């Protein structure tokens, strides 16, 4: 099955203290239609920046230096600005973490969804309004007709996020980028929103790139997982494979540190040290300074993926099969 969204070698830099520092290094992954890839990592690992880079929304003064983003065969990086604007919202949509601030506070929620529709389709205002109300109903907003005129501050966090989802899916995009969509919500609401996303995905076969740091969320929605560390992808694979038998030492450390895994009375196992800031990432394998299996050679090793069936790992000590055409650089 050829992938819907294929990202290869994405590198994004920011100027820090005069130099161009990469915050994303050679990021590559694929998302299939109707499936969900969870991009997992700590704060600062580059997860959000990956999504922003895909949509070419990297805030100034940062920029995407290299890489291709293939959407059904078309490279988004090569598009002109007006062409890219047509892609945003219509073919690739993005939802953000904080529903509180993601919506314009002085415009009604209905009008904001209508704006999304009218930006890409030539329909009448009434038609757009009707579609919006229907979308509200579909995402589970009670009394959708009345809620059209509501202002963001009048809605709860969960309702606001439903509005955001409605807005994102209004034009039936083929790819949805979801940046920590449930992090700011209560746990019970979280489950509802994830359930909603699952339903919508099943309905329209949307490919979802789910960005999160929460393994609980991963478990509920993801089909595949990609683990990020210091701007690089260090491991990819199916959800079961990665969660049950993590290969990369970092992934192993992450899962070991989860409270659910520990035995009662045991000390929680943490990974010593901290993830480096983009400007302080060491050469070679970025995880080497903290890795329990590190060798001296790791600091000189340019990370490359080893392939094991459907899994890829970027670790010197996991050379299960040589680098091949499906591997590529990490």
């Amino acid at each position, binding site marked *: 099955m050829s992938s819907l969204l294929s990202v290869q070698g994405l590198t994004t830099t920011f100027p820090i203290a005069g130099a161009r520092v990469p915050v994303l290094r050679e990021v590559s992954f694929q998302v299939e239609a109707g499936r969900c890839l969870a991009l997992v990592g700590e704060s600062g690992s580059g997860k959000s920046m990956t999504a922003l880079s895909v949509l070419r929304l990297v805030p100034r003064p940062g920029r995407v230096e290299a890489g291709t983003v293939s959407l059904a065969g078309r490279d988004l990086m090569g598009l002109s600005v007006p062409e890219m604007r047509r892609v*945003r919202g219509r073919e690739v949509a993005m939802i953000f973490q904080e529903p509180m601030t993601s919506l314009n506070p002085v415009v009604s929620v209905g009008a904001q969804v209508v704006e999304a529709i009218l930006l890409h389709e030539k329909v009448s205002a009434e038609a757009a309004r009707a579609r919006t109300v229907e979308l509200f109903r579909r995402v589970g907003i009670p009394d959708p007709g009345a809620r059209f005129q509501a*202002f963001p501050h009048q809605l709860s966090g969960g309702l606001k996020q439903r509005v955001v989802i409605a807005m994102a899916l209004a034009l039936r995009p083929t790819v949805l980028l979801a940046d920590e969509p449930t992090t700011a919500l209560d746990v019970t609401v979280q489950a509802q929103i994830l359930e909603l996303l699952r339903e919508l995905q099943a309905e329209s076969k949307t490919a979802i790139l789910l960005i999160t740091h929460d393994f609980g969320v991963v478990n509920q929605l993801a089909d595949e997982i990609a683990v990020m560390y210091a701007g690089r992808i260090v491991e990819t694979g199916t959800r079961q494979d990665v969660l049950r038998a993590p290969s990369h030492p970092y992934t192993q450390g992450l899962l070991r540190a989860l409270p659910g895994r520990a035995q009662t009375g045991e000390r929680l196992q943490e990974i010593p040290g901290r993830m480096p800031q983009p400007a302080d990432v060491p050469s070679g394998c970025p995880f080497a300074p903290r890795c329990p299996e590190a060798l001296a050679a790791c600091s000189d090793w340019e990370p490359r993926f080893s392939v094991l069936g459907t899994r890829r790992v970027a670790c010197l000590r996991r050379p299960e099969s040589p680098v091949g055409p499906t591997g590529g650089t990490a």
Partner: protein
Amino acid sequence: MLAYIVRRFAYALLVVWGVLLFLFVLFFAVTTPDDIARRSVGDKALPRVIEQWKHAHGYDRPLWPSVDAPTDNLLVDHFRRMLTFDLGKSDADNVPIARRIREGAAPSLLLTLPMFALGLLSSIGVSLFVALFRESYIDRAWVFLSVLLMSIPMLLYIIFGQFLLSVVLRWFPLSGFDDDPAVVTRFLALPVLIAVLSSLGSSVRFYRTVFVEEIHKDYVRTARAKGAGELRILRFHVLRNALIPILTDVVMTIPFLFTGSLLLEAAFGIPGLGSLVVDAINANDFSTLRAMVFLGSLLFIVGQVLTDISYTIVDPRIRLS
């Protein structure tokens, strides 16, 4: 919301009362009617002359209320008259102050209304433009220019403007005023131009900051992700949010439309309310000064109340809470 408006008005009345009290203390206690009289008739005048002057100008009653004269004193008189807009006569030449104010209002408005409109349009226009190009050379150059423009005292603008544009280039008349509609723009053009230019620096700095802050907010990022272009974002999203603090700033300046600009009117010989104050200074005319400060304060208070109310109307977060 009605309760809020009522409360706001009530507090405004309280402040008016406070202003009147302050003015009374300042103009009657700190400097007594005797002092005022002496400034008019001379320091060495005989007590009899001073009493005569005080009687002629209505200052010959006790200052504070006392047991046997609870209402026949200057304090009660001051309050009663100011609140009924019985502004009395000028200390200098006995002309009724109210008449002078009526005569001076029109010229002042003719100066300040164009100043206000042009100033607002140009500030918002320039700051929108600069916000669009934020972080670029245009933006940095403008920020520096703003600070530069802000560092020049209004005096220098007037002197330099008059010198360059009137004396050297002879584009405008130096001063004077004629309310014949055919020629009035000629006399007003230079002062309006100078006024707009001198306030451009600080206005643009403030508006630009507001715009740029809004542009960095999350909802703008959402709009971009929807596929909206920069122009639409500015027009539809940023402007609506930014106009709220800008509106506050703008409504506050409306009262000044009436009081006129003292410097400009004095420098350009425009017979408005500003000139009235300047004349009062030169003639030691305390009663006119008192009336003008009261009037100015009243308008200011009205402006503040209007601002607060407009805020509740314009911002849905406040309106619907």
